[in-house]
């Protein structure tokens, strides 16, 4: 009794009396800080370790070359496990900067965390980068000044896939009468594009069917039997985690040709295809960041970081994989925004508000891509006050059984068609929240 009481009270005391330190900012350091809400454990760890590995390695590479105009980059991590509350806690903990270095932008790589920190980011004037994911209507920067769904929002993704299918068929007019099935994950993320595909179906005259797979997607027998009955020309896979390899395996089981399945941006990594083994051979997916190590910027990272033994990857074999390269691309865009903002605000560490200006005026053209050594890895990107997405182009890649092979050039989404829908949704949000949108014609 005595003993038990002591151990228990010691345990309780340790927890309750724990002092929780929060980083306090001190002035005077010449560093720019990146708060990283990373996830290295839990069901999505494979994505997190790759992405944040690539991101950190790129930052290391920049530092090895002397930082951004002499300003060194610094970062610290906080584990979110992809859980929303943990992400919020990390956000609150890290947003104030590190040892005096101000935070530049947050990059949670999680839809849930992005949504939960969206308003906080706006209030704190700290850019929230949701590369290739996030809230579609945040493309409209007049309502969402601090949110950047860079490169590709979910709507553009669908449009680009349809354009690719049209390309294969020989033109948009050939889409008429085709049958396209979208197999989507039973979550808000999965459903998000259903209205868009229906809209495109009406416009181009193809037949669209959407079929839901309940989370997590371990079992897809009935869905694929349904697909077999429909006999579609193409299947678009909006998968997530385990759902992807299971879809490929079940497709094989029901005799659907795997090279007519197109995976979306979250069905495009090695981890999505490899577990399906032979069943994945021929699987096509889109990407904004092709895998591979041949790009000059990756060679540079290899020299300065990987060969120096300081890579963040615990398994160096993953260098140049899809998630890693997404991290590198994300690193490039963040650093470019800082660099650009420095031209306006001076070559010192910047506040989130100043970095926001940098993001909003990003303009990465062919010449800049060449300088960065990222031709083919990164698309041309031009952002503005009203357009926080920029690119909207994807390349297609095919799984050859061991790795991805790029099979197309950049395919552009029909962004003009999608714009009114995005604006309408953004206006609705503004009204619900009582936000007065910025007048973008007055912004420089």
């Amino acid at each position, binding site marked *: 009794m005595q003993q038990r009481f002591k151990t228990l009270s010691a345990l309780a005391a340790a927890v309750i009396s724990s002092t929780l330190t929060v980083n306090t900012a001190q002035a005077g350091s010449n560093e720019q800080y990146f708060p990283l809400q990373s996830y*290295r*454990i839990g069901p999505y760890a*494979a994505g997190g370790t790759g992405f944040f590995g690539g991101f950190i390695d790129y930052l290391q590479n920049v530092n090895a070359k002397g930082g951004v105009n002499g300003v060194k980059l610094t970062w610290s991590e906080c584990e979110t496990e992809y859980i929303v509350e943990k992400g919020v806690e990390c956000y609150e903990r890290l947003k104030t900067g590190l040892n005096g270095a101000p935070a530049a932008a947050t990059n949670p790589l999680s839809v849930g965390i992005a949504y939960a920190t969206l308003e906080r980011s706006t209030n704190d004037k700290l850019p929230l980068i949701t590369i290739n994911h996030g809230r579609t209507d945040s493309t409209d920067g007049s309502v969402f000044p601090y949110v950047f769904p860079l490169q590709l929002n979910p709507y553009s993704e669908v449009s680009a896939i349809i354009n690719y299918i049209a390309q294969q068929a020989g033109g948009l007019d050939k889409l008429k009468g085709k049958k396209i099935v979208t197999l989507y994950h039973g979550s808000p993320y999965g459903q998000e594009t259903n209205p868009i595909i229906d809209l495109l179906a009406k416009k181009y005259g193809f037949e669209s069917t959407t079929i839901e797979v309940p989370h997590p997607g*371990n079992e897809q*027998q*009935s869905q694929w039997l349904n697909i077999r*009955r429909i006999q579609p020309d193409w299947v678009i896979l909006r998968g997530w985690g385990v759902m992807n*390899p299971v879809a490929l395996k079940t497709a094989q089981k029901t005799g659907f040709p795997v090279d007519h399945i197109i995976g979306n941006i979250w069905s495009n990594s090695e981890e999505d295809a490899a577990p399906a083994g032979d069943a994945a051979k021929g699987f096509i997916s889109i990407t904004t960041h092709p895998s591979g190590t041949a790009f000059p910027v990756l060679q540079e990272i290899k020299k300065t970081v990987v060969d120096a033994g300081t890579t963040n990857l615990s398994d160096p074999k993953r260098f140049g994989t899809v998630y890693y390269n997404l991290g590198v691309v994300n690193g490039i865009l963040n650093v470019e925004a800082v660099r650009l903002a420095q031209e306006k605000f001076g070559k010192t560490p910047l506040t989130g508000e100043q970095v926001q200006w940098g993001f909003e005026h990003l303009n990465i053209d062919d010449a800049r891509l060449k300088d960065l050594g990222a031709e083919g890895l990164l698309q041309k990107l031009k952002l503005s006050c009203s357009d926080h997405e920029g690119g909207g182009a994807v390349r297609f890649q095919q799984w050859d059984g061991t790795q991805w092979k790029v099979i197309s050039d950049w395919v552009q989404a029909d962004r003009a068609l999608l714009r009114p829908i995005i604006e309408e949704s953004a206006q609705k949000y503004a009204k619900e929240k009582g936000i007065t949108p910025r007048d973008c014609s007055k912004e420089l």
Partner: protein
Amino acid sequence: MNFFFEVLVGGLLAGVMYSLVAIGFVLIYKASGVFNFAQGAMVLFAALTFVSLLERGVPFWLCFLMTLAVMIVLALGIERWVLAPLANRSPITLFMATLGLSYVIEGLAQLLWGAQVHGLELGIKDEPFIIGGIFLSQFDLFAAGIALSLVIILSIFFNKTQIGLSLRAVADDTLAALAVGIRLPKVWVIVWSVAGFVGLVAGLLWGARVGVQFSLSLIVLKALPVLIIGGFTSIEGAIVGGLIVGASEKLAEVYLGSVIGGGIENWFPYVLALGFLLIRPAGLFGEQAIERV
């Protein structure tokens, strides 16, 4: 009509996969009265250990034996640190303890072997073939065969061997079993080891089907309605329950799903189980409980 049979057969075969997980539950429940929520975590742990050993170049049969040994060690640990201290507690307490246990095992599995997704090839081609106009999956038939032989092995084990008979004695009347000199801790260890073995088999089949990864532990949620329908104490019940759940959820997804919207597979088995419960609270093959004040 062909399509109907295709869905039905596909569902029945998928149901066998659920049964495989459910059998592990039944074993443990029969012998120790524990509703073991950690069975899913055990499936994950076994499959992850197996595939990690395999990737390190250990031959197949040796992997199997080594994983089995690990599962036995796990059973020993569970008996010593969870079951023995919690003896004579209410079933709900034991259930919650297995919830905690599932966290420990899942954490342990990922701590030891990492969180990567692994592919697993058992060397069975999964090309479809057609009999009488109906699509059949070779792999699913193979899985059904494994499940069948597992049931036969288990029933021989329970009916013919000394250990099996003492297990049944404990299940029938724990006090009487103790009185004739059967040692309860030993029986627990054996039962949990056998459940570990069943978990390993289920883990291999499920792993080959969906890849070895974290979500394997979620299949426990599919096994639950199977148990409710079949009854907690009967292996035959687990098989029949699995078949009912598999077939009905697929048919519901295809036919009901097109009416009220798809994706109903997650909750449909539970509603079905609830229906069964209201009519027959002990399940199809379960034992009726009599209550006294």
